[in-house]
C-alpha cells in the first residue's frame, strides 16, 4: 500500500532541452536517409520524377506561352493606330482637312500621308515582276488607288478613344473607310487571356496530379518502412523525427520533377522556335520566342518542391498518424 498517493503526482514528464545542433543533425540524417532510399530505388524514383515533370511541364509551357504573347503585345504597343482610306479622286484639300482634324486629337502621335500618286508608284514598284499588271495600270485613264493616312496614336490610347476618333473621321468629306489596326492587338490579348485562364485551370489540375503522384510514392515508401517506424517510435522517436525523411522524399520528388519539366520545356522550345518564327514571320509579325530565365526556373523549382512537400504531407498525415499508438 505504500506511497499510493504521493504529493508529487501530476508532474509532467520532463522535456529534453532544445539544441539547434540536434535539430540540424536530425535534418542531416533525414537527408542522408532520403538519398540512400532514392539511390537504392533509382528506377522507380526516375519514374516518379518523369510523372511529376510531365504534370508540371504543361502548365509551365502555357505560362511561358502567355509570357510570350504578352511580350508580343508589348512589342506592338508602339504601333497601334488607324488607317484612313480616301475615296478615289479625293481632292488634296479634303485630305489636308482630315489631317488638320487629326492633329487636334490628343490621341494622335504622328500622321503619315501616302497620296494617290505615291501609292501608285509604290504599287508599280511592288508589281514590277508582273509586266502585264503594270502595263494595264499605265493604260487606265486615271489613278485607281486612293490616298491614305497612316495615323499612329499614343501608346496609352484606349480602344474606346480610337473608336471615337474613327467615328469623327468616317463622316468627313472624301473619307471612304477608317480601319483600327488594334483589332489584331485585341485578338492577341484575347488569346493571351484564354491561354492564361487555360493555364490556370490546367495548372491546378496538373498540380493536383503532381501532388497525388508524390503522395502515392511517399505512401509506398512509408509502407515499405512501417516496421522500422514502429521500432523508431518505441525507442522514443518524436513524430517529427519519424515523418521528416518522408517530407524530404516529397522535396526530392518535387525538385526532380521540376528539373525534368524544365528539361522538357527547353527541348520543346528549341524544337519549335525556328518553325514558329518562320510561320509568324510570313505574316510580317516580328517574333522572338522568349525562353525561360532564372526567375522562371526558380519559380518552377519552388512550385515543384512545394507540391512535393504537400504530397508528402498528405501521405504522412494518412499513414504515420497512428504509428506511435500502434507500436507493437
Amino acid at each position, binding site marked *: *500500500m*505504500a*506511497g*499510493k498517493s*504521493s504529493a*508529487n*503526482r*501530476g*508532474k*509532467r*514528464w*520532463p*522535456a*529534453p532541452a532544445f*539544441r539547434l*545542433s*540536434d535539430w540540424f*543533425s*536530425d535534418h542531416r*540524417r533525414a537527408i542522408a536517409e532520403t538519398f540512400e532510399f532514392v539511390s537504392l530505388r533509382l528506377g522507380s524514383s526516375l519514374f516518379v520524377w518523369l510523372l511529376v515533370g510531365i504534370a508540371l511541364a504543361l502548365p509551365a509551357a502555357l505560362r511561358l506561352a502567355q509570357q510570350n504573347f504578352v511580350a508580343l503585345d508589348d512589342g506592338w504597343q508602339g504601333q497601334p493606330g488607324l488607317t484612313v482610306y480616301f475615296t478615289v479622286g479625293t481632292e488634296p484639300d479634303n485630305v489636308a482637312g482630315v489631317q488638320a482634324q487629326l492633329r487636334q486629337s490628343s490621341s494622335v502621335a504622328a500622321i503619315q500621308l501616302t497620296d494617290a500618286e505615291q501609292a501608285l508608284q509604290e504599287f508599280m514598284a511592288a508589281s514590277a515582276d508582273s509586266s502585264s499588271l503594270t502595263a494595264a495600270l499605265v493604260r487606265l485613264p486615271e489613278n485607281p488607288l486612293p490616298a491614305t493616312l497612316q495615323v499612329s496614336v499614343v501608346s496609352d490610347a484606349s480602344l474606346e478613344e480610337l473608336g471615337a476618333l474613327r467615328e469623327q473621321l468616317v463622316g468627313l468629306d472624301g473619307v471612304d473607310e477608317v480601319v483600327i489596326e488594334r483589332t489584331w492587338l485585341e485578338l492577341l490579348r484575347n488569346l493571351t487571356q484564354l491561354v492564361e485562364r487555360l493555364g490556370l485551370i490546367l495548372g491546378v489540375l496538373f498540380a493536383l496530379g503532381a501532388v497525388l503522384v508524390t503522395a502515392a510514392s511517399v505512401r509506398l515508401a512509408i509502407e515499405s518502412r512501417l*516496421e*522500422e517506424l*514502429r*521500432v*523508431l*517510435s*518505441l*525507442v*522514443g*522517436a*518524436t*513524430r517529427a*523525427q519519424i515523418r521528416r525523411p518522408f517530407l524530404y522524399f516529397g522535396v526530392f520528388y518535387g525538385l526532380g520533377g521540376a528539373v525534368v519539366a524544365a528539361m522538357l520545356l527547353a527541348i520543346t522550345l528549341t524544337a519549335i522556335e525556328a518553325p514558329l518564327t518562320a510561320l509568324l514571320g510570313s505574316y510580317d509579325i516580328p517574333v522572338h520566342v522568349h525562353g525561360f530565365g532564372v526567375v522562371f526556373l526558380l519559380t518552377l523549382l519552388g512550385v515543384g518542391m512545394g507540391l512535393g512537400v504537400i504530397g508528402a504531407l498528405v501521405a504522412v498525415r494518412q499513414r504515420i498518424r497512428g504509428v*506511435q*499508438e*500502434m*507500436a*507493437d
Partner: protein
Amino acid sequence: MSAIVFERVTKRFDNGQEALSEISVEFASGSMTFLTGHSGAGKSTFLRLLIGAETATRGRIYVDDVDISRLGARRMPWYRREVGVVFQDHNLLLEHSVFDNVALPLRINHLGEREVASRVRGALGKVELLGKEHLMPSQLSTGEQQRVGIARAVVGRPKILLADEPTGNLDPDLARSVMELFGRFNELGTTVLIASHDIALIQSLGMPTLNLAAGRIADTNGVLDGG
C-alpha cells in the same frame, strides 16, 4: 520510492474484451519483478500500457510520479527514451547492421557518433556480442538476435526495462543466461519488469512475481499490492 504505480487500471478493447480489470499495484524503484500468468491473462497489455502503446480505459499509471496514461503524443517519445523494451520477436531492423540496430535509441537522442560507438560496444559487450556489430540480424542465431534486442533496450541506460516473453524462443540454458543478464542490469539500478510464463525458470531465480489471471491480480509474491 515507487517507480511504477498502477491505480485501479482497467483496459477494455473496442470489441468489449476487458484485458485488465481494476489493477492496483506498485513496483519499487530498482526492483526486478516477473509478471506471470497464462496466455490472455493480460501480461502483454500490462506492458503495452506501460510503454504507451495502449491507453488505459480507466485508472491511472504513474511512472516516477508522472501520469503516463495522460502524457499525450508530444511527451510520449521523451518518456519512451527512459524505457527499454525487449520483445519476444526481437523487432530488429533487418536491413540494418547489429551496430545500427543497437545505436538507434542513441541517435534518436542526438548523441555524438563517438559516444554512440562507445556505448554500443559497451552494450554489445554486456550481451557477449562484441565483434558481431557489423553483421546483419539475419546472420545471427535466434538467441543472438534476442541479445541484440536486449542490447538495444539497455544501451540508452533506461530507468525502466520491460521485457515481454524475452525467453520464449530460447533453450533453457540461454533463457537462464538472458534472465541473469536482466539481473545484472537490475543490479545497476534499473527497474526491471519481465512478462513470462516460464514458471520453473522464475521460481529458480527467486524473484518477486505478480501473477495475473483473466485480467486481475491472482497473486502477489514480494510485490506491493496497491489494492
